Structures are given as structure tokens and as C-alpha cells.
């Protein structure tokens, strides 16, 4: 079958689109997505506006030893922050090394 769609080799996080809403981690049937986030006040609001906070992503990791490449996270993400990539995931010699840290930031 010839298709322009990427094959299901790897799942990529489009970090600017992610709002740390946790929906992918909750929908994942294999519990392979780990997310840490914190809230920060929104800067640059007009004077007099009520204080607002936004979520900031600190850590986004997929454990490829658990992932079954079902794509439910991609389907469920309301912000299209996950997408298929054709290249396969990198092999590793230990199951721990299959945990791919896509975002690591100390808060």
C-alpha cells in the first residue's frame, strides 16, 4: 500500500502545542506516558486583569518498553501535540533505556 501517511514507527511530541492536560497519560492503555508539569502566572496581562496561571511542561516521557503503538494518545490529544513519525524507535540494551525523555526541564 502506498500512502503519504507516516507509518507507525515512533510518536513525537510537538512541545509548543502541549498544554500538560494529562489526557494522553490517562487514555494510554499501557500507562507508558509520564508527564510532570507546574503552573506559572501568565506575564504581560493588561493592568487590572485578574491573575491567571498556565501549565508549564517539565517532563514528558514515553516508555517504549510498554508502548504498544496503538496511537490512542495521538487520537485523543485535543491540541494535536502528538504525531506519528515513520522512523522506528531507537533500540536499547536495557528496558530502562527505552524510557525516552522528550522534555526534561527542572522546575
Amino acid at each position, binding site marked *: 500500500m502506498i500512502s503519504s501517511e507516516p507509518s507507525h514507527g515512533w510518536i513525537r511530541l510537538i512541545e509548543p502545542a502541549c*498544554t*500538560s*492536560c*494529562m489526557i494522553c*497519560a*490517562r*487514555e*494510554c492503555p499501557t*500507562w*507508558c*506516558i*509520564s*508527564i*510532570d*508539569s*507546574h*503552573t506559572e502566572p501568565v506575564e504581560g496581562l493588561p493592568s487590572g486583569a485578574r491573575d491567571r*496561571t498556565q*501549565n508549564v511542561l*517539565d*517532563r514528558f516521557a514515553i516508555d517504549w518498553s510498554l508502548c504498544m503503538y496503538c496511537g490512542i494518545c495521538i487520537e485523543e490529544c485535543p491540541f494535536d501535540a502528538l504525531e506519528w513519525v515513520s522512523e522506528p524507535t531507537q533500540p536499547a540494551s536495557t528496558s530502562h533505556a527505552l524510557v525516552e525523555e522528550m522534555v526534561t526541564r527542572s*522546575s
Partner: protein
Amino acid sequence: MIEIAPQEWLTAVEALKADGFEYFDWLGCVDEIGRRDCLRVVLVVRNLSERAEPRMLSCSLSRTDARIDSVSGVFAGAAWHEREVAELFGVEFIGGERRRLLLSPEFEGTPLRKDEVLAARTGMNWPGAKEPGESDFSPGRRRLAPPGVPDPSLWGDRDASQTAPDPADVAESAVGGRVRRRRP
């Protein structure tokens, strides 16, 4: 859907086949726990020569003693479906093939019954338990529960001397979500 009593299951299927519904489509099962305390076996046959609607037969069985006659003598192809239902729901098909189809011989349990819990997960931290903006699991909050994992007080940490939990309560507490819906 035509409701059939368990003792009339085989004769009802034979009668439909004699009536021209000679094409076996599928046989499946539904665990109706929470609505009714039964397992429902469903069978669909079609009449390919006429423009007739497919016929769907259903039969409700006791969850504790789920036994029904095998129809593999009428439709040989039903044997696979019956073997699948037998091992996934724990239904015994009298006179049917008893070999396993999908699960390994040493596997114990009936994976598609709704009171079947994912036991290995009861001791794990669910990644989805965190709220947006959180980095730590905060046990004090009203917890969000993952599907398949029952309430620990009901299934996991309970006193072994107490009676076994009601399957309906286990199934109900393992649906997941924001609120533990417990009956009073």
C-alpha cells in the same frame, strides 16, 4: 433480538437453519453485570438467498453457572467463536470443543468479565493520576482512578477473614474516572 431460554438454544438455532438462515455470522458474549446479573450469549445468522434481515438470538446465563449447549454441530464455524467466549468469559459450551484458542494453558481467569481486575496495576502509580500542573502524586485530593483497577478497600487491602467482595461492586469500582460510584 430474539430471547431464547438456555435449554431451547440448540433447537432454536437448528430451527433457524432449517428456515433458510444457513449462514453463521458470529457468536459473542456480553457481561451485563451492573444491569443484570448475567452473561448474555449472542448469535447472528443470515439468510443469503433472500433479502431477509439477519436474525440475532440471545440467551442470558447465570454468571456463577454459565452453561449452554454448543451449536458447533449445527454450524461448524461457530466452534472458534465458542472457544473464544469460553475462555474469555468462562462460559461452558456443552458438547463443544474444550481446547483453548487464544490464551495459554496455564492462564487463570476470565479476562473479559467486568469484575476481572488488572491485579498487577493495583500496586503501581498510574501516570494519569496527576492533575495538570502537578509533578507529584497527591493522595489527599479526590483521586482520579484508572479503569481496570478496583477500589483498594474493596478488593486489595481488605481483611482476608471477611467474605469475598460482590463481583458487581468490584466491576463498578473498576470503571475508572473521577468519582468512585459506590452503592450505599
